């Protein structure tokens, strides 16, 4: 691997600036003449807007302008879109309610933006925002998806009768019903996947700058995919044509999905900059983040799992209702369908699966992809059901899983996916060994002796990363392609710039992508610079989400490197008077195999640019690009085991150990992978034990709108994790990468809940399993 190549535990290049507070985030950007914005937001969950009186606000000190939805409409700024079309089972397209960047006729959730105030200072903008008088006529609100779909619920969008967005299905219900009817055993479970608020460390922000002299816009924003933001803002929101709009996502402090979407605020800041002729900056405060960032999860499901007399699964039937909030966010429609239902086969060989998914509008913040996006919901449902089945059947949960594992690949599931490879037994074995599974009984006895209840639970999850290929996702309704781009520029002195369409917001691309170059060219990572996040610098790219930056983004770099290497070899062969096929690139040199003839990398590069002596007909320079479209998703999978001790007096759960054994395929930097697993598992434990978004069902007010009420995981809530990896390479990309960004959040929640329910002997336990919830479940 080399000291800095693939597989090396290299310290992150970017950490120096992050740890010393020298990162450059959107809020650090300052342009001459810049002013500050504050949004006027709805205090009501559902109300008609009868009028907006801006006069008092306009007269306040420092106020430059107050703009509302009417003006936005006058300027023909488009409505927000959902980029994935889902058709209901009756063939009708999903019911997309109109989402104006500034609400004009009605507000539909607490936090819905109504107007923007631009002022000299943020404080002045805040004062003036309070002085904008909106005449609201309150309407009844509904926050719960089941209630929203019930008869007589308040109607949220005129074109979505009964608040239903779509009623979609996958699989053959006839086959499944027949299998259920003839099953030796059926396990049935009702499961709620709790709603979460992402809470990236850096709140969302945007700085819109319209330059009238150039008729050109620049938008600095907290985006995971600046090119997609530019595309959508140009093609759909009519902000500016692509060539007149530059989107820059500088350092971004965490996204977890919530920064994929193009929100009203960046559109409005750009538009307001043109309207007011000043650069307009908006930075969310924490309360705004709670209210208006896209939330995650919020599924209500029923699952039935049919077994034959040999405990083999014969069928699965799932009925899910997903809450998509007040408006359909950019990828919201795909989360409970193609990112969820397609993973319901888990690691198991199941001949028949049917899932019915209904989605509902509610008077809550929009819900979209959040770390794992659909796969945590699927994994939670399947793995809770498997554990429950094992208990009902009286068999060892590991053995029930093992018996039903898929062992031959490729494997076509009944729900679209073709699993390309994996070894589920290997990760199960690795996890059980690391967890000393066999020693559990003794540990349980020890806990019992001190009055504590010990439990153990596992989850064998599968997920799908690097969503692809573009043609396939297009046929399923995606509005975009899901390839990635790369350009590798070798400078005249041999140093290297990699321009990538991926975007790093904590993942460490500046290190891992450089490691790939180091591996391939034998140069140090210090001579490699990764450029990303600026549509003026980098060719069109698709950004970072769905653990795609390795499997798709690095693969594009790999293909571009192939091209660079091929040309470099041609130049070297020419200069060394050798055969091209004999040139090897190693240790920063081009060598003629089997001889002592070498050409330093930088001399080859210099030769490419002086162009004094290149092979006949060769163009000068050394710069290659690639667009990579994988042949399939990649399928990371693994086994998580959680062991807990519950205090029966208080219901407090202590996680005594947590083991993650994951198959991520090739690993570029094990330290960064460990970090991704630690972070993902922490978020999963957060979902399982601590985090729950709660709206007041009557008023629609967000009750968990600050850290006083929304419990983020803290270090002392967590054990030290044991992270193991097993390896089968993904055949769908040249590097064999599978992706590791989300697995932790996908595998851990069911493992935790399986452990607690094992400890307390009651299988009916909601997330978050707070002390109160566990205590009540023990009493029940």
């Amino acid at each position, binding site marked *: 691997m080399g000291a800095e190549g693939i597989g090396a535990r290299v310290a992150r290049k970017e950490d120096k600036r992050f740890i010393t507070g020298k990162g450059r985030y959107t809020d650090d950007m300052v342009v001459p003449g810049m002013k500050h914005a504050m949004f006027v937001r709805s205090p009501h969950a559902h109300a008609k807007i009868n009028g907006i009186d801006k006069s008092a606000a306009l007269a306040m000190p420092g106020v430059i302008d107050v703009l509302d939805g009417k003006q936005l409409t006058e300027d023909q700024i488009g409505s927000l879109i959902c980029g994935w079309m889902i058709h209901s089972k009756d063939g009708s397209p999903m019911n997309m309610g109109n989402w104006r960047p500034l609400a004009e006729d009605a507000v539909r959730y607490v936090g819905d933006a109504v107007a923007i105030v631009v002022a000299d200072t943020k404080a002045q903008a805040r004062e003036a925002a309070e002085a904008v008088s909106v005449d609201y006529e309150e309407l009844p609100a509904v926050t719960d998806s089941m209630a929203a779909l019930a008869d007589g619920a308040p109607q949220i969008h005129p074109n979505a009768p009964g608040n239903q967005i779509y009623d979609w299905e996958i699989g053959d219900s006839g086959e499944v019903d027949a299998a259920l009817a003839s099953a030796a055993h059926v396990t049935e479970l009702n499961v709620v996947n709790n709603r979460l608020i992402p809470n990236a460390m850096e709140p969302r922000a945007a700085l819109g700058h319209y330059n009238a002299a150039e008729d050109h816009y620049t938008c600095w924003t907290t985006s995971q995919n600046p090119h997609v933001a530019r595309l959508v803002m140009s093609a759909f929101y009519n902000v500016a044509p692509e060539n007149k709009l530059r989107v820059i996502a500088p350092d971004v402090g965490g996204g977890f999905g919530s920064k994929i979407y193009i929100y009203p605020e960046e559109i409005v800041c750009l538009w307001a900059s043109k309207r007011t002729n000043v650069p307009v900056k908006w930075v969310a405060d924490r309360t705004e983040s709670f209210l208006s960032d896209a939330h995650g999860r919020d599924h209500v499901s029923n699952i039935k799992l049919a077994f034959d007399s040999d405990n083999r699964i014969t069928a699965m039937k799932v009925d899910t209702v997903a809450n998509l909030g007040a408006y359909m966010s950019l990828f919201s429609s795909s989360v409970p369908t193609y990112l969820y239902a397609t993973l319901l086969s888990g690691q198991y060989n199941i001949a028949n699966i049917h899932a019915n998914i209904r989605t509902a509008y509610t008077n809550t913040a929009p819900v979209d992809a959040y770390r794992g996006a659909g796969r945590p919901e699927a994994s939670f449902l399947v793995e809770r059901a498997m554990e429950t089945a094992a208990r009902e059947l009286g068999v060892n949960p590991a053995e029930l899983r093992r018996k039903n594992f898929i062992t031959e690949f490729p494997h076509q599931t009944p729900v679209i996916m073709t699993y390309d490879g994996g070894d589920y037994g290997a990760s199960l074995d690795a996890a059980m060994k690391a967890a000393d599974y066999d020693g559990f009984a003794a540990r349980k006895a020890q806990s019992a002796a001190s009055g504590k209840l010990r439990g153990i639970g596992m989850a064998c999850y599968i997920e799908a990363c690097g969503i692809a290929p573009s043609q396939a996702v297009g046929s399923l309704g995606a509005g975009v392609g899901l390839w990635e781009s790369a350009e590798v520029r070798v400078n005249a002195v041999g140093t290297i710039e990699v321009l990538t369409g991926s975007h790093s917001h904590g993942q460490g691309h500046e290190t891992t992508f450089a490691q790939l170059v180091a591996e391939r060219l034998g140069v140090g990572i210090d001579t490699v610079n990764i450029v990303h996040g600026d549509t003026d610098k980098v060719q069109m790219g698709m950004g970072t989400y769905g653990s795609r930056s390795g499997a798709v983004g690095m693969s594009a770099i790999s293909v571009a490197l192939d091209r660079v290497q091929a040309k470099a070899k041609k130049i070297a062969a020419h200069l060394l008077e050798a055969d091209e096929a004999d040139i090897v690139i190693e240790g920063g040199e081009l060598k003629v195999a089997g001889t002592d003839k070498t050409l330093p990398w930088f001399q080859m590069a210099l030769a490419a640019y002086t162009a004094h002596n290149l092979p006949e007909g060769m163009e000068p320079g050394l710069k290659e690009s690639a667009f990579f479209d994988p042949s399939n998703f990649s399928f990371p999978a693994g086994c998580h085991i959680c062991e807990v001790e519950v205090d029966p007096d*208080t219901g407090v759960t202590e996680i005594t150990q947590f083991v993650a054994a994951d198959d991520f395929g090739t690993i570029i930097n094990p330290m960064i992978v460990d970090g991704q697993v630690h972070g993902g598992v922490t978020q999963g434990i957060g979902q399982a034990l*601590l985090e729950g978004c*709660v709206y007041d069902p009557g008023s629609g007010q967000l*009750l*968990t709108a600050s850290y006083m*009420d929304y419990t983020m995981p803290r270090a002392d809530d967590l054990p030290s994790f044991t992270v193991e990896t097993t390896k089968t390479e993904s055949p769908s990309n040249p590097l064999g990468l599978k992706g590791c960004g989300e697995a932790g959040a996908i595998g851990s929640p069911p493992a935790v809940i399986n452990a607690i329910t094992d400890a307390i002997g009651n299988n009916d336990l909601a997330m978050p399993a*707070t*002390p109160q919830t566990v*205590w009540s479940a023990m009493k029940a």
Partner: protein
Amino acid sequence: MYKTNYHRASSVEEATSLMAGADDGKLLAGGQTLIPTMKQRLAAPSDVVDLRHIADLKGISVAGNQVTIGAGTTHADVANSAEVRSVCPALADLASHIGDPHVRNMGTIGGSIANNDPAADYPAAMVALNATVHTNSRQIGAADFFTGLFETALNDGEIITAVTFDAPEKAAYQKFPNPASRYAMAGVFVAKGGGGVSVGVTGAGSDGVYRASDMEAALNTNFSSDALDGTSVDPADMLSDLHGSAEYRANLVKVMARRAVAAAS
């Protein structure tokens, strides 16, 4: 935060007159409650009178059995005080579990009891220790000081200068933190002194901090955890919220009381 006039007082007298001259003045101690409330625009005092630079309000002294803690003494200073640790380790322990290091280094005992948050820790200790609250105009017994949720016997502009109490023979505080805020969801301070056993409960009661008299009676007969078996906590008297139902809090009060008795030293 709305605009406000900031004043730095250098003596209690100056603070008193600044408050008297203010339209709608607020005393500022550690600012750990007041400043966030102002930032959320839930409080808009016309004037803020900063007590942090009044030397007389700070410090801890122990004379024999009598402990005096200046109102401006930070939680960290109480937690780390060798004197408090020697005569009433339970109080140092309580202070060491308030909030986080930032909060402990800024927040003060005077601010905490003046605020009388129903989930704050100090009030439980104050009632269980039969503390006396000294102000710029009088002395108030803890039993009369805490009058309801966020309510105290303080008059407008009245300034707490110190609290005093007699160190108990034995005491302990057990806190069950709210998972999100880590304020007390049930906190029980048990103290055994010359006048018998007293049990102060915070975080749980629907009227704020209270003394659990039936627990006290049981413990006066037999100072052991088991003595509490016969006592009960009525959920009807408990707070109920997102994080804990009244039934759950009633359970926690009893569990924390048992643990406090067991830990009392």
